[in-house]
């Protein structure tokens, strides 16, 4: 019987604990929370490190009077000792040069599983960091399940990472990541701009509506195949894209500049013309020419929107490219909704009269309002 008990010594102490595993945890595992903040153009990093009092007690026995509780009176006199211990396990370097750490303050804070010591510090780097390398080793020798959760903010960009015994050193490329984020941000802005810029959308839709039809001897007939319609669409979209990319770039780079009221008025005028051309067709076979010519004007409009966002000098080309990609994505989204619908409906009277004629008249009317507003600098649609 002794033999058997010995062999069962381990697991049967709380047999049902076996069945629940980690879900029965009355506590969460040990984590520390490290945050670093880099301000662009500055050498110094500001930091904060939250470490559970329980964990510090394990190594430093903070509960000096052994009453199973830790008071502020027991904690605060140990500040130097705590800092010496923990900062031996944290190394920060910027572009391969160490940034020495200076602890500044000891505070406390409450997390979901108890009270943590909050150690504020600064790290002094010799130059503004382009890349950061952080080495973390706290508590790994005592508890390999300990994790260090890092939150790094540089300017508006934040990154997070988890330190573990097999991942004690992590490198952050501040420059690259910020460029990538910036690109994404401008792509999103580009998409928003075309979706919120009703004048661009209406111009494009006016040019796309007749794409599923063919004009023969003064009458519209349905395009027999999708291929013909798609060819027309590609022509229009490509011409518009090439044209507005051209003037967008020239305007942003400062090669040409036009007064914005003139540009906005011309954009409204382009919508009126494109819409009326569907009602009384003048240009039918070469719609891409309209797209190209007025696309040049729309490009100036995009440029002023992009300028309004505030252009970073060091990443001008990047933001220009990103914004343009965003505009194209937004534009393709519109095309991919409008064209298939138009193709399906193209044989119906509803499409010919209701959508093409009446719809275009409505577009022309709205755009005429914009034209008057912009030319005379008054507000017709004040509440819209």
């Amino acid at each position, binding site marked *: 019987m002794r033999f*058997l008990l010995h*062999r*069962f*010594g*381990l*697991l*049967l102490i*709380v*047999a*049902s*604990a*076996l*069945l*629940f*595993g*980690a*879900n*029965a*945890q*009355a*506590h*969460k*595992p*040990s*984590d520390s929370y490290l945050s670093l903040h880099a301000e662009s153009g500055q050498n110094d990093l500001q930091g*904060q490190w*939250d470490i559970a*009092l*329980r964990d510090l*007690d*394990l190594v430093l*026995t903070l*509960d000096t009077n052994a009453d*199973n*509780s*830790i*008071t*502020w*009176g027991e*904690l605060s006199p140990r500040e130097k000792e705590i800092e010496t211990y923990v900062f031996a396990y944290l190394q920060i370097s910027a572009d391969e040069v160490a940034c020495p750490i200076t602890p500044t303050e000891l*505070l*406390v*804070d*409450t*997390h*979901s*599983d*108890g*009270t943590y010591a909050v150690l*504020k510090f600064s790290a002094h780097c010799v130059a503004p960091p382009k890349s950061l390398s952080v080495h973390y080793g706290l508590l790994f*020798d*005592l*508890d*390999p*399940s*300990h*994790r260090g*959760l890092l939150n790094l903010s540089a300017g508006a960009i934040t990154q997070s990472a*988890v330190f*573990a015994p097999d991942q004690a050193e992590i490198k952050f490329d501040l420059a690259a990541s910020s460029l990538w984020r910036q690109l994404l941000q401008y792509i999103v802005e580009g998409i928003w701009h075309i979706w919120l810029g009703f004048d661009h959308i209406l111009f494009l839709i006016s040019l796309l509506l007749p794409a599923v039809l063919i004009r023969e001897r003064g009458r519209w007939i349905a395009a027999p195949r999708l291929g013909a319609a798609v060819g027309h669409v590609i022509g229009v979209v490509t011409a518009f894209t090439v044209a507005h990319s051209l003037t967008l770039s020239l305007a942003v780079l400062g090669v040409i500049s036009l007064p914005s009221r003139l540009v906005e008025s011309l954009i409204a005028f382009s919508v009126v013309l494109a819409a009326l051309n569907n009602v009384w067709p003048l240009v039918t076979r070469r719609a891409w020419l309209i797209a190209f010519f007025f696309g040049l004007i729309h490009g100036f409009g995009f440029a002023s929107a992009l300028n309004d966002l505030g252009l970073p000098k060091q990443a001008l080309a990047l933001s220009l490219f990103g914004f343009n990609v965003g505009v194209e994505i937004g534009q393709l989204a519109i095309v991919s909704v409008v064209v298939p619908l138009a193709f399906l409906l193209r044989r119906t009277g509803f499409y010919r009269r209701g959508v093409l004629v009446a719809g275009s008249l409505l577009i022309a009317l709205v755009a005429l309002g914009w034209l008057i507003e912009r030319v005379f600098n008054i507000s017709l649609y004040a509440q819209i």
Partner: protein
Amino acid sequence: MAICETAQAAPYRPASADVVLETLPAGTATLRTLRQNQIVASSGKSVELDEAMLIARRYIELGQTQSDPRYYGYAEAALQPWWSQPGPAGLRVMRARILQFRHQFLAALAELEPALQTDQFNGDAWLLFAVIEQVQGNVSAARVACLKVIPIAVPLVGSTCVASVGAMSGKSEKSAALLQSALQQATAAPASTRIWAWTTLGEIQARRGLNNEAEAAFKQALAITPDDVYALAAYSDLLLQTQRATEVISLLATHRQADALLLRLAIAAMLSHDAEAGALRDALAQRFTEARERGDEAHLREQARFTLELDHDAATALTLAQKNWKVQHEAADAELLLAAALAAQQPQAAQPVLDWLKSTGIEDVRAAELVKRLDVGVKP
């Protein structure tokens, strides 16, 4: 006991020296002694494996009684020099226990297999093996392991092991009878073993739809140790299913530390429109966020149920329940995936569970009810 107030609170300087910042857990005195032993042991030339295993064992015991993952970490640290060495069976079982606690089931089995080859009478190893296979829904492998446990262990352990597996393979009634007679004869068995047996009996009865019998069994378990997490969770589930949410609130009032219990308490509070419902939900969400941030995936079952029953986000709950089903195959996991598939109106997502229910022959009135509703939902 206050629920966590977190995150938003800014760091502060306490007003005076006698502000109590933290109360240390009950095991702290033992922990200090152990740490001291560990330091003494490692101050010599090198620690002997036997010595390290003795220390690790004590840490695991503390971890089990305190339900505290830190102690499993300390145990791992004590075994660090031998952590990736083959080592004797006892060492492997200990590593398996730590891995199983972290829901790394496959890694745990990979430790147990060689351990059992060198020591086929290792009761710990067989029992752990049975538990892991059962959690993963491998009924026949679990049964084989339980049969190995019988001649080595005290009778109640073997019976509970066999009965819980038997109930997963269409032998609920027999399993319940086996447990009842084993419990009658084993009044002298260790308390922890009796709690395990009573809770298992309660779960089997609940799955058979015998709610009164199930309740009686859970009460027996809680009469032995009123704060056993597993028994409390199982009893709470029974109360929730029988529309007795307010009783769950009083049952768990002082037991919200474990995630599994906080989840049941939050569901009960929501169902009975308790004023604390919102705060409980947020506390639980915070725990899941923290677990995710550190890369923990041991809470999938709880998280799926949270998303389904508290957040009513059926689509996300279904994804989580499916992810959970890849790791765990117990009755509770099956019910969860069925309920999520039903809520998300994606009956085809329940197919793996339907197949599993059929192949095991498990009796489960709640699962059967969900299957029926799924069927009705599909046909019209």
